[in-house]
């Protein structure tokens, strides 16, 4: 038995990825959970409008971070801001008593805001927009679509590609008179189509079973999902190029998947995280897809409101997918890569 234990430790010591999962991952998880796992929102971006805006801003509880006080703005402006996700709360003093518009798509923020306004009694009338009953499923389902796409894009794709490498057939493909682009597209297209099909199924099921409203443009959502798919498929291909076995690919994919689940804002609100942790979240593609999905599903937001996440995701897609294709191409046509390097030299 002693020999067995020693052998196991020796193997583990040399398996750097497993060691990373055993030692680094718990520390990272503990740190992230400790800071990120916070449902309590400390500050809520708020705007105040109407003739009594100055006074209402002064009387607002500390929780509300008053960003803009505009006596001239109208209720229509307030609703437009909310749709554009420009702020989480608008206190509208054009009505009597003032109306507080709260973004129900930001579940925990809305819960905190409602509770705070509730403590003010009749002074404010609360109108929760986009998710009046604060249904968890309404917020989770759009975000879950992103998680499912991430899962297929990274884990399934990387496993599929590594399998080709592991069985030696990737070398056979490299020897065939196929262009690297043909192999790459031919290899990735089925996963893209399957993930797109999954996205459609989950969207329909989400709307049908959980009554999640779909208020925005289906085409805009499809484009966003397509761009996001390029990012996650690119990550999957990159994982495959640095993994020799399917187990290694799964390990790496999980290491990249976990932060996306925890820090993309779909479980724990980004606003409730310390700045440094939220900054990590803002580097993750799922964060931007969640923003797009919730914006289109619940707020019915258009491109004018969502151009930032679209732009960031497009940038990420170009970067990650290009890197992935170049790495994969190098595996398929190493001599061409060598010739190009020789020419450059």
């Amino acid at each position, binding site marked *: 038995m002693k020999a067995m234990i020693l052998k196991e430790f020796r193997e583990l010591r040399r398996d750097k990825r497993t060691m990373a999962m055993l030692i680094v991952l718990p520390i990272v998880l503990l740190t992230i959970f400790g800071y990120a796992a916070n449902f309590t929102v400390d500050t809520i971006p708020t705007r105040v409008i109407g003739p009594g805006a100055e006074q209402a801003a002064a009387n607002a509880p500390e929780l509300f971070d008053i960003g803009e006080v505009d006596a001239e703005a109208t209720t229509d402006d307030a609703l437009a801001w909310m749709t554009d996700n420009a702020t989480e709360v608008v206190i509208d003093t054009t009505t009597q008593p003032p109306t507080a518009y709260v973004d129900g798509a930001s579940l925990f923020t809305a819960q905190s805001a409602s509770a705070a306004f509730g403590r003010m009694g009749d002074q404010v009338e609360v109108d929760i927009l986009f998710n009046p009953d604060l249904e968890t499923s309404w917020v989770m389902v759009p975000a879950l679509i992103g998680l499912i796409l991430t899962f297929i894009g990274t884990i399934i794709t990387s496993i599929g590609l590594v399998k080709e490498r592991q069985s030696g057939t990737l*070398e056979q493909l490299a020897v065939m008179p196929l262009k690297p682009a043909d192999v790459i597209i031919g290899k990735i297209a089925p996963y893209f189509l399957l993930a797109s099909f999954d996205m459609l199924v989950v969207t329909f099921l989400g709307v049908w079973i959980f009554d999640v409203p779909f208020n925005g443009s289906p085409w805009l959502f499809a484009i966003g999902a397509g761009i996001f798919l390029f990012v996650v498929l690119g990550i999957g291909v990159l994982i495959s190029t640095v993994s020799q076995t399917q187990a290694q690919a799964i390990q790496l994919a999980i290491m990249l998947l976990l932060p996306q689940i925890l820090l993309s804002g779909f479980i724990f609100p980004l606003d409730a995280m310390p700045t440094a942790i939220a900054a990590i979240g803002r580097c993750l593609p799922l964060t931007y897809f969640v923003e797009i999905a919730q914006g289109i599903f619940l707020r019915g937001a258009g491109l004018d409101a969502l151009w930032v996440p679209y732009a960031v995701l497009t940038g990420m897609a170009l970067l990650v997918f290009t890197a992935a294709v170049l790495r994969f191409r190098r595996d398929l046509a190493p001599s061409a890569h060598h010739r190009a390097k020789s020419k450059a030299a």
Partner: protein
Amino acid sequence: MAEPLIHAQDVTRRFGDFTAVDGVSISVAAGEIVGLLGANGAGKTTLIRMILGLLPPSDGALALFGAPPSREGRARLGYVPQGLGLWDDLTVAENLAFVDQAFGSRATAVPDALAGSRDGLVGGIGLGRQRQLAFAAALGHGPELLVLDEPTSGVDPLSRARLWDTVHESAEQGVGVLVTTHYMQEAEQCDRLVLMSQGRAVGEGQLADIVAGTTALAVRTERWQDAFEALDRAGVLVMLSGTHVRAVDADEVRVRAALGGLAAEVEPVGATLEEAMVARERSAG
């Protein structure tokens, strides 16, 4: 004279400080079967990967069909890698169909021997049949050159003989064949051999030429274990086949001196390819 299908001149491949292939030159002409012979780790597969363009050489010149290895060149060859390069989750027929489509060739018929497994998954058929399928896939598009990396490894003798029949048939039709092997019996099937040891080519020529450079002495004695130990102690290159002791590239006087008073018959015999190879490896090493 026709241009060789493969021409490698002083090709070297280094991986960091390790030199896997060290200044090897090799050529393969149409209709010729060239055997690349060497132990595991001799550099055979690395050389093949460079010829195919899967690995750039660190030094030296390499031409495939008269040009640097390229996709166009690879379209004219059939390759059977050591791992066979078959898709286990596809059926026999689907594997052939995919290869046909990739090469843009007409449909390859499922070999008769595989007719019963036509719709069976490749992962579920035996290794011998998998190798037959790999050969059929490699030959389907009518290649001018066959590159076979350990093509009969793990195959029973009957299947091995069948596969070699296929190789000979192809060569008779003008296909050049480069085959790596570490089976001495297979080397005898080749027109020309290149012996590799520790990354270097340590011998080249026809089987008879290679063997002719090596001498062997059969040492017949009932005390064969003592004879073996005595010769080994004396630094003689000694090989054992069953209970037959053979001294390779050794002087008869030296052998008798090493045996001392041990009663034994010492008789010059023809060296085998294996002995020639070991002798060259030793002198190279």
